[in-house]
């Protein structure tokens, strides 16, 4: 196991380098990083040249990348458009997005698995059919449409929630945005749980459990669920990174000042350092989450052995 972790960590390095390099190149193409530095006005040529030298922008791209990554490794993510260090922006943005993601994950687990179990055990009944239809609709409607509609209904028409989240983003205000963020994954968790349950239900070991005379509840919880939830748990694990990256739309709709908001601002103002910095952290989160999921898989399923 230890050796496996080491090898996986080593394998992560090229992927990390590749992904950050790719995003670095994209941002490099994106535009002039100093354009936003002189406020609303164009920079005059002399200032621009001075700034270029200061930021090392006169260097070739690969050297810029190396310098940047070198700085990142020492914890220096550069400066945002408003002169703040990017790390400071991260310090305010990430807690908000992490809270939002947590709400989304909890909703996925609670609602998604519950619906999946209910439908999986009642295949073909009206509950099953209607939930299945509902998940298809949720999957088909893009998140931004779902978000706008929910905001319209709950926030404007019925006035149950504030249409936009306040700056501190307290947990209570994040529940509806979290639901929007989770919606598509939630539908997948439901479907995955249902399929997995239905597959395992016909399995030999469940038949054995029934033949042993175990009560139905025990057959379901201890034998059926324990096995069926393995793919679900791994899906939810990989979803953590995906949700944080996908929060950009949800954060925009509900005006949440999280990672997505900062990234959006960074892109609007063509601030290279903000964009690359935030994406670098997101890529790391994604890679680590994936590694953890693979390790979790081995814990949940004893047949999996990592060599």
């Amino acid at each position, binding site marked *: 196991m230890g050796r496996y972790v080491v090898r996986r960590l080593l*394998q992560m390095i090229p*992927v990390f380098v*590749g*992904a950050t390099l*790719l*995003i670095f190149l*994209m*941002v490099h*193409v*994106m*535009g002039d990083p100093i354009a936003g530095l002189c406020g609303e006005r164009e920079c005059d040529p002399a200032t621009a040249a001075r700034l270029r030298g200061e930021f090392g922008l006169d260097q070739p791209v690969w050297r810029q990348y190396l310098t940047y990554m070198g700085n990142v490794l020492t914890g220096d993510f550069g400066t945002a458009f408003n002169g703040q260090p990017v790390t400071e922006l991260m310090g305010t943005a990430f807690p908000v997005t992490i809270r939002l993601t947590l709400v989304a994950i909890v909703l996925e687990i609670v609602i998604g698995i519950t619906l999946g179990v209910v439908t999986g055990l009642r295949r073909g009944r009206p509950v099953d059919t209607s939930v299945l239809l509902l998940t*298809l*609709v949720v*999957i*088909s*409607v*893009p*998140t*931004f*449409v779902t978000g*706008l509609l929910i*905001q*319209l209904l709950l926030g*404007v028409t019925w006035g149950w929630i504030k249409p936009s989240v306040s700056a501190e983003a307290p947990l209570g205000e994040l529940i509806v945005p979290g639901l929007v963020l989770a919606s*598509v*994954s939630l*539908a*997948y968790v439901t*479907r*995955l749980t*249902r*399929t997995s349950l239905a597959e395992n239900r016909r399995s030999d070991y469940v038949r054995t459990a029934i033949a042993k005379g175990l009560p139905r509840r025990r057959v379901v919880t201890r034998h059926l669920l324990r096995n069926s939830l393995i*793919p679900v748990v*791994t*899906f939810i694990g*990989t979803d953590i*990174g*995906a*949700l944080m*990256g*996908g929060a*950009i*739309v949800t954060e*925009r709709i509900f005006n949440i000042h999280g990672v997505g908001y900062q990234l*959006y601002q960074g*892109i*609007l103002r*063509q601030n290279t350092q903000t*964009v690359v910095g935030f*994406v670098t952290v*997101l*890529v790391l989160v*994604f890679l680590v989450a*994936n590694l953890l999921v*693979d390790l979790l*898989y081995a814990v949940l399923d004893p*047949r*999996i*052995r*990592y060599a």
Partner: protein
Amino acid sequence: MPEQPYEPERAMAGTGMGGQMDLAASEATSLEKTPAGPEGTGPEGTGAEDKARSLWSDAWRDLRRNPVFLVSSLVICFLVVISLWPSLIASGNPLACDLAKAQEGSQPGHPFGFNGQGCDVYTRTVHGARTSVTVGVCATLGVALLGSVLGGLAGFFGGAWDGFLSRITDVFFAIPVVLGGLVLLSVVTGNSLWPVVGFMVLLGWPQISRIARGAVITAKHNDYVLAARALGASPSRLLLRHIAPNAVAPVIVVATIALGTYIALEATLSYLGVGLKPPSVSWGIDISAASPYVRNAPHALLWPSGALAVTVLAFIMLGDAVRDALDPKLR
């Protein structure tokens, strides 16, 4: 099982729907997992052609009787027709707007009312189909071609090329799609479809590549392929006559579902203000433009949203139906 961090994309990478296939494919890929149970022997077949032919004809027989397939193909045919000839059902000009009528509701001749700029919502919704269908079809074709060629070759030849391609795939999976789109497309100043399509192909091919690779590896180890190889079939013949016909099914399924998600992605990017911009006619642009007026003119938001949702749903359901038909295990 790395995921692509954009929600609707998960119709392909995820679970439930395209999921089984992806799980199966990634099982066979780079994760060093060794299930301790006895090895599955794989389906037996007498010959690649026979097997492929009966698979497709069985699937077709199944599909013809499947109401989900019939309904979704009808919807898709309708969409294709109105995107080719929108004036068949909406003769107005989508760009003819009258600010005096802004936010007005339904009235004779204008069943869906007017949006915030006073444009006819019905005409714009009908004309918006062309953008969505074009982006979806072109992006899917590009992704499917590039992905299946690269992935198929990697699966067939294995070795260093395969290892390299797997790492590249990992790199692309690690970048959140919406974010990549925001960054790349924010540079584009023109107002053309092709940068959007190009971006989708660029970030979308690893998905199909992974599926194609897994499918080719599975097919490669089938007994009839081993037999053909033992009889001295050349690599190109093996790949084209024996492996490709059996590996193409999962690619088609995933690509169909992906088509719907590309349409959703185009709208999402337009909503975020990159990709297409006015005066282009696109559901995403209209939804984005309608959202500030949602309090007074919700219809301007609801109609293009509904059209978008129905379109995406149709493709996802079509893919779902095709997958059910092509997967004999589920029968």
